[in-house]
């Protein structure tokens, strides 16, 4: 039997907290963390570029004013504040199943029952959407930037999808656990996730029974959640699956251990032998050298955008391991590491969809409806709580295709109120040819978004859609062209009463910024997460000058003209659609 437990549950975790931040965990070099900090203090240049970079990566961007404020403080102070987390945010109240509408089913016809089931499902989807909106608003508030940045990372790391779990309570609780622990302890999250009802459902562990194993959770636990491919054998997968038998979701939706389904036999896992259960598996995983390396590597790569060198990976894996998987020492050291601010890293990462939209809102200090951010990010490939696979989302250039790049610009235009679908069509003389809408599936999709994964029968009832696509000039009941579903969803997410909460002309006048060049500078500074490329500055200034001249105005007089706001918003829209605006 195994004797050593790295972490014996919550008690050990709590005990370990003060110890590890001082760096006295078993086998640790106590001076290591301090040394790293001292080194950073010597060579980390604390300038606007680096401050903005810190807020881009350890949060969701900052306004020029926030950058200026941070510059006045010491880097250690700023980083410490990020790592220790903000004041608690009022949690979303998750309605339990018992609080959803209860109806007496006796005496209902089959059709009524079916309608009721559908209504219940819809109610549950609404709660998932409401919860997602809540999280987006918290991200955009900047109340706890690093916690939410890391919660987004962990949501993609220990990922589950509503598409399979189909239960907003389980999904929200999983997220609450990950968000609460996102700056805390990796081991606690790992232990939490193997007991998490959402995950047990997502990876089919309720079907993993003694003598009838289902390896789904076991494999992903090793491959994605702890060790990484190549650090375990197929036999390990099989034995871990045996150890995880009986761990499932009870009818009340809570974690449930069914003794009768658990395989109490002996197992051999990663060279250890014993009658292991799920908790033992977590202990064994945390003992592996590969575990800290895998986790540290993933975190550093996520925050820097490029994989760390072997030397830095060693360093951060050691920090994580010596801290018994507390994340704070690693994060603190990383955010003060001069290498985190090297040219290869700064301004070279393609922002993810949530980053881009929340970042636009934060940098421009322009509130966006959370539903718009949610739907917009989903269209761009990052649908929160619906990751494409158990591997989460691919980061970096994988976000960008020709169509996602165009859609980013279109979303920015909608947020700024300068893209109106009908006007665009009419203005280009395409009105007569429009009519690509497909109402039959539109109706279904708006309610049954999740049906589109090819799994359900929802989409496959054959309809008139192809005739519709062939038709010329299909109009809706008001004689307007049918909007593509994608844009219609976005429009409805942004709401009919939406108007951009930004007054650029006023802002520039207040700041005394009036000439083309000065406006361009100011706009670039606020809108971009990176130092602007020189040619972009020229292009923006030229655009502003052309528009101003078309209005017959002298340089410096634009803001006094009634068209100023429109000119400025269109210029900003153009800027947000450029490649430079996609980077951080």
């Amino acid at each position, binding site marked *: 039997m195994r004797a050593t437990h790295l972490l014996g549950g919550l008690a050990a975790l709590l005990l370990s907290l003060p110890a590890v931040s001082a760096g006295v965990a078993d086998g640790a070099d106590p001076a290591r963390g301090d040394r790293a900090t001292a080194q950073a203090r010597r060579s980390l240049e604390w300038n606007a570029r680096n401050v903005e970079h810190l807020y881009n990566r350890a949060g969701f961007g900052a306004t020029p004013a926030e950058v200026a404020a941070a510059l006045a403080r010491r880097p250690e102070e700023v980083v410490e504040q990020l790592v220790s987390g903000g004041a608690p945010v009022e949690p979303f109240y998750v309605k339990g199943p018992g609080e959803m509408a209860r109806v007496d089913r006796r005496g209902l016809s089959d059709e009524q029952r079916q309608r009721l089931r559908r209504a219940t499902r819809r109610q549950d989807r609404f709660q998932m959407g409401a919860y997602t909106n809540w999280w987006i608003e918290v991200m955009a508030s900047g109340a706890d930037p690093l916690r939410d940045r890391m919660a987004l990372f962990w949501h993609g790391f220990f990922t589950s999808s509503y598409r399979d779990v189909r239960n907003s309570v389980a999904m929200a609780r999983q997220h609450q656990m990950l968000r609460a622990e996102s700056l805390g302890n990796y081991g606690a999250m790992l232990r939490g996730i193997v007991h998490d009802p959402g995950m047990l459902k997502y990876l089919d562990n309720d079907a993993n029974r003694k003598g009838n194993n289902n390896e789904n959770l076991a494999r992903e636990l090793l491959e994605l959640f702890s060790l990484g491919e190549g650090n375990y054998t197929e036999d390990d997968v099989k034995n871990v699956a045996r150890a995880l038998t009986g761990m499932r979701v009870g009818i009340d939706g809570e974690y449930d251990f069914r003794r009768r389904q658990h395989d109490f036999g002996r197992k051999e896992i990663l060279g250890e032998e014993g009658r292991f259960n799920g908790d033992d598996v977590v202990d064994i995983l945390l003992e592996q050298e590969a575990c800290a390396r895998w986790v540290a590597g993933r975190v550093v790569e996520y925050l820097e955008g490029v994989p760390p060198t072997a030397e830095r990976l060693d360093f951060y894996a050691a920090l994580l391991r010596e801290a018994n998987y507390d994340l704070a020492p690693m994060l603190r050291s990383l955010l003060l590491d001069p290498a985190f601010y090297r040219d290869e890293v700064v301004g070279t990462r393609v922002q993810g969809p949530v980053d881009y939209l929340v970042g636009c809102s934060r940098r421009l200090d322009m509130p966006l409806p959370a539903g718009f951010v949610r739907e917009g990010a989903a269209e761009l490939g990052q649908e929160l709580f619906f990751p494409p696979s158990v591997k989460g989302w691919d980061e970096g250039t994988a976000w960008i295709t020709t169509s996602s790049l165009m859609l980013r610009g*279109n979303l920015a235009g909608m947020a700024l109120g300068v893209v109106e679908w009908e006007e665009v069509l009419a203005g280009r003389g395409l009105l007569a040819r429009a009519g690509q809408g497909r109402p039959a599936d539109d109706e279904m999709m708006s309610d049954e978004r999740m049906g589109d994964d*090819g799994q359900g029968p929802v989409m496959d009832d054959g309809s008139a859609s192809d005739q519709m696509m062939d038709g010329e000039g299909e109009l809706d009941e008001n004689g307007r062209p049918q909007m593509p579903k994608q844009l219609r969803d976005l429009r409805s997410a942004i709401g009919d009463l939406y108007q951009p909460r930004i007054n650029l002309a006023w802002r520039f006048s207040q700041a005394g910024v009036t000439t083309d060049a000065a406006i361009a500078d100011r706009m670039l500074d606020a809108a971009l997460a990176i130092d602007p490329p020189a040619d972009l500055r020229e292009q923006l200034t030229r655009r502003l000058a052309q528009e101003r001249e078309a209005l017959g105005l002298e340089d410096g007089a634009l803001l006094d003209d009634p068209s100023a706001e429109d000119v400025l918003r*269109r210029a900003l829209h153009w800027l947000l659609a450029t490649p430079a605006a996609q980077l951080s």
Partner: protein
Amino acid sequence: MRIDRRSFLAAGGGVLAASFGAGPASAAVRLFGGGDERDGRTLVLVQLSGGNDGLSTVVPYANDEYRRVRDSIRLNADQVLALDDERGLHGELKGLKSMYDAGRLAIVEGAGYPNPIRSHFKSYDVWHTAHARGRAVGEGWVPRLVREAFPKEAAPERMVHIGKQVPYSLHSPTSAPVAFEIPESYRWFGQTPEASDAAPESTGNPALDRLRGVQADANASSRRIRDAARSYRTAADYPNSAFGRALRVAASLIDARIGGRVISVDLNGFDTHRDQRRQHDQLMRTLDEGLAVFCGDLRGRTAGDECMVVVFSEFGRRVAENGSRGTDHGTAGPMFVMGAPVKGGLYGEAPRLDRLKDGDLVHTTDFRSVYATVAQRWFGADAEAVLGAKYPLLDFA
């Protein structure tokens, strides 16, 4: 690498620029930037995501061992469309069966690769790069194919993915694939970043350079793709599923001959760890309905008759079912190759159920033989240059 791609674009630039202002009407044929416009050879890749159960697709229905280990999810003799007295296609694959009977469907049995990986992602990486090292190669196999087969072509839409998740097979370090779900919103609204403003010279920031290339590609392909989809006329009744809609768009791009050489679509949901029969039957129906209509639609069209469809999945599934009427990740499985240029029939060898390795099938044909055959015999490219190694060719092309 980067400069190569830009000079590629520059080479076809005159054609692109000329076509851009030319109005929507008859854009198609002229837009075939730089290539041979009489040549419409196209490859359509259909990916069955999640790991398709090969034994439920080409079913060894008469095999006792199959019947024993697939106690609850097996297909019986009356649930398959017999190919011979040993194996049959899944009963839902009616359209594929008639293509097979007409000699236009090749079934490659037991496709896989040595040292199979049971991770979805790592195994896909092998299929997508045609290389055991997966993404370490840095490029998908499709850009290599297109480069070898059509060295003179510049159009960005040579590789198109219709759907959300772009497979790594289309990944190139120098350009992003053209990808979209809905052609009509594949465009910029309002302020369009000018293509001419995308400076070709390097900014010193590789990510920015790459995005500027994407921007130019978006500008160049947006109008052509929308026009192709809009002007497409067909009597074919595509199923109203995401898969059916994607295939319809694929047909419109092929018919318009806008230069798409490889078009990728996918069908999701094959990771059937539990309750497999219900899900898999439905998936087979969706697959069959879509492909039957698609191939029927292409048939008789000039460009359509020059189109080859390859259906694959990242792995098959375990031979024995698991405890939840499903199957876990396994190894080899069948591939389909179809279309007018295909010599139909059974290729390769059915994997033996009595010679398993760790409970899994042993592959009998390397999937790269299918790639190599498509590259060499269909596209006339040097398959070894595309795949980095020599693989035996099959006779379906």
